[in-house]
């Protein structure tokens, strides 16, 4: 559910309008972090999340800058505004975290996920599976006379829909990456101007 909030960004650090904090609706936010790519950093983030009982729908991590040893973590989480603000503040105080950004709050962002979907079927169901694959612009990356492995990319809803359609056709297994997300527009991530991947 998109956030209906059109109030301006925080006026100063920590300042969140009371009306927002008292809103008891649950929203889904995509939060991105740039962290030092050091041993245990994922355990730090996931341990914080589980230890404090936050609801995490997706968490992905991968190195994004080899020279500066930076990784990016994308987290999709649901909660009230107060909880979302708390998640961000808690993540922000981890020592290896460079920056925390709420992509949902900061304007439009795009998020994609990749899924590998194995379907075992024969006869008419094979044709049906291939037709659905075409509609979703998925790729067939492995096939046997009794099965397909599809590769499908899109937002979480699209992948959910694809998997739902494959279920009656003989869904055997799915493997999903979780989301990678990025803000629309020209601006880079780090507020110190050093965007990851900038030659240092």
């Amino acid at each position: 559910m998109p956030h209906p909030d059109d109030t301006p960004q925080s006026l100063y650090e920590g300042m969140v309008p009371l009306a927002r904090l008292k809103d008891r609706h649950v929203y889904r936010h995509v939060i991105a972090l740039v962290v030092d790519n050091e041993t245990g950093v994922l355990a730090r983030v996931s341990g914080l999340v589980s230890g404090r009982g936050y609801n995490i729908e997706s968490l992905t991590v991968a190195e994004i800058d080899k020279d500066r040893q930076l990784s990016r973590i994308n987290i999709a989480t649901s909660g009230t505004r107060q909880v979302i603000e708390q998640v961000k503040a808690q993540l922000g105080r981890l020592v290896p975290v460079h920056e925390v950004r709420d992509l949902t709050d900061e304007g439009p962002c795009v998020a994609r996920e990749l899924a590998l979907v194995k379907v075992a079927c024969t006869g008419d169901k094979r044709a049906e599976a291939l037709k659905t694959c075409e509609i979703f612009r998925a790729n067939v990356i492995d096939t046997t006379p009794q099965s397909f492995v599809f590769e499908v990319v899109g937002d979480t809803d699209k992948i959910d829909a694809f998997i739902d359609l494959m279920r009656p056709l003989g869904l055997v297994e799915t493997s999903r990456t979780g989301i990678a997300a990025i803000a629309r527009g020209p601006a880079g991530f780090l507020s110190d101007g050093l965007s990851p991947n900038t030659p240092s």
Partner: protein
Amino acid sequence: MTARAAVLAESEADTFMSGARLILKALEDQGVEVVFGYPGGAVLPIYDELFKQNRIRHILVRHEQAAVHAAEGYAHSTGKVGCVLVTSGPGATNAVTGLTDALMDSTPIVCLTGQVPTHLIGNDAFQEADTVGITRPCTKHNYLVRDADQLARVIHEAFHVAREGRPGPVVVDIPKDVSMGQGRYAPPLPRGAAHKTYRPRTAPDARAVREAVALMAKARRPVFYTGGGVINSGARAVAALRELLALTGFPITSTLMGLGAYPADQDQWLGMVGMHGTYEANLAMHDCDLLIAVGARFDDRVTGNLAFFSPGSKKIHIDIDPSSINKNVVVDVPVVADCGQALEALVAAWKAETAPRPGLAGWWRQIADWRGRDCLYYEQKGPVIKPQYAIQRLFEIAKDRDPFICTEVGQHQMWAAQFCGFTRANRWITSGGLGTMGFGLPAAIGAQIAHPGALVIDIAGEASALMNIQELSTAVQHKAAIKLFIINNQYMGMVRQWQEMLHGGRYAHSYSEALPDFVKLAEAFGCAGMRVSDPARLDQTIRDMLDTPGPVVCEVAVDPRENCFPMIPSGKAHNDMILSAEDAAAKRITGEGLALV
């Protein structure tokens, strides 16, 4: 730096040293004077290096938990970082309670742990534990050093992280092959140099300060609610708080951890807030129209039932940790900053603010009315000493000697908080957040080591005292002349109180069965021991305890039935307090309150 020293420093940077020497040199350059520790196989090279030098003093404890608590006592009483050295495996796991305690109370600690050699990590080697894994959730940050070249840099960074921002414990796990290896030294970063990622905001945003002062200027029923953050921030924060209070004339209450930042002998002081806080402090929190929280975190012991917490007030919250803000209670004006800098900014802005201000006379009349209830009243009559009386007399007799007061956890801790009127910061050392029984005795030793000539008293219950009683041996060995003042009511008093109020008086396992003879116990350790049960003899016994050199154990036999009041029962609001035993009978705890701790 002289030319010779510069040359030496340069040559030192180029020469290889053993890992253990690098560790000691890094500690020296961090200004460490005392390390609390316990040796073992994985830290033998570090102990060997300790043996060869005289600059850093090592205090041998009798249990690693006590090493961390002693370092906490050292840190709370000095404002410096406490330093701990323990071995791998059980050494590290025994330290976990202390580390968690330090995390909850924002105490700056650097704990060096030994680890099995790197090639054995993950192989279930003898005395191996996944120390960074185990301590990740109970430290502010932790490190595993895999290369002797990184040792000095990591230790310097550990001190930086422990000290800056909201302080906390940091673990540096050092495999034995690293402390035995060779590496190059790296000097500490200059004070104030920015860390790559950890840069807590310390200066308040000017807009936040403006909004805060605007609210303060029109408040009719304001109250300050201050916490341990003011004391952690240091002398500047304490001075600025006192100045701001003098300028505004507002009333002030404080959390358990914040006692002493504002002098308890001033008229503006309302006493402690919270579950066992005073009637006037809790009602002021409930009825105020402006709540100014400074370095406090709206803990559940303070707020009571959040749904009814201070319902009619605007709230300003000053805290260096952004995650403390809006965590439990949503606030109108957050000020993310060091308490000292924020309070100084408020002082300056308050002086510049010239708008007419409403008078506070009505608010003070209301407060005087609440004070009239005399909520800490108890009666000392008959042949048995009341625990409140013992603590009140102790503080009365000791206060002119500027004592450091430590406590364990339970009823005696709350009575100490209620009856010791601290006038200075860093004199009150207690386990607030974690509530660790067994904290006080080692903490007292740490404070005494830091202040050898000072009077350091641990107010304890007989149950808590036994949790780390082995540390009497540490006190004797290191000539730490602590005074262990045991309030013996023969029960885990707070457990008994809750069983009485919540579980129909079924005192399951809260009776202190088979207690030792504390006088003989003290003597067995080489301490002086004394006991008193007659109210008429109490003052003289306390004087004897204070005047006896060396560590002393003084057991005070008190009324076993006394309960700690006032009390906000679990699940209740600030304006629904129990003031006395009769009151408790009328206000049974039911429903959701039963499930709360």
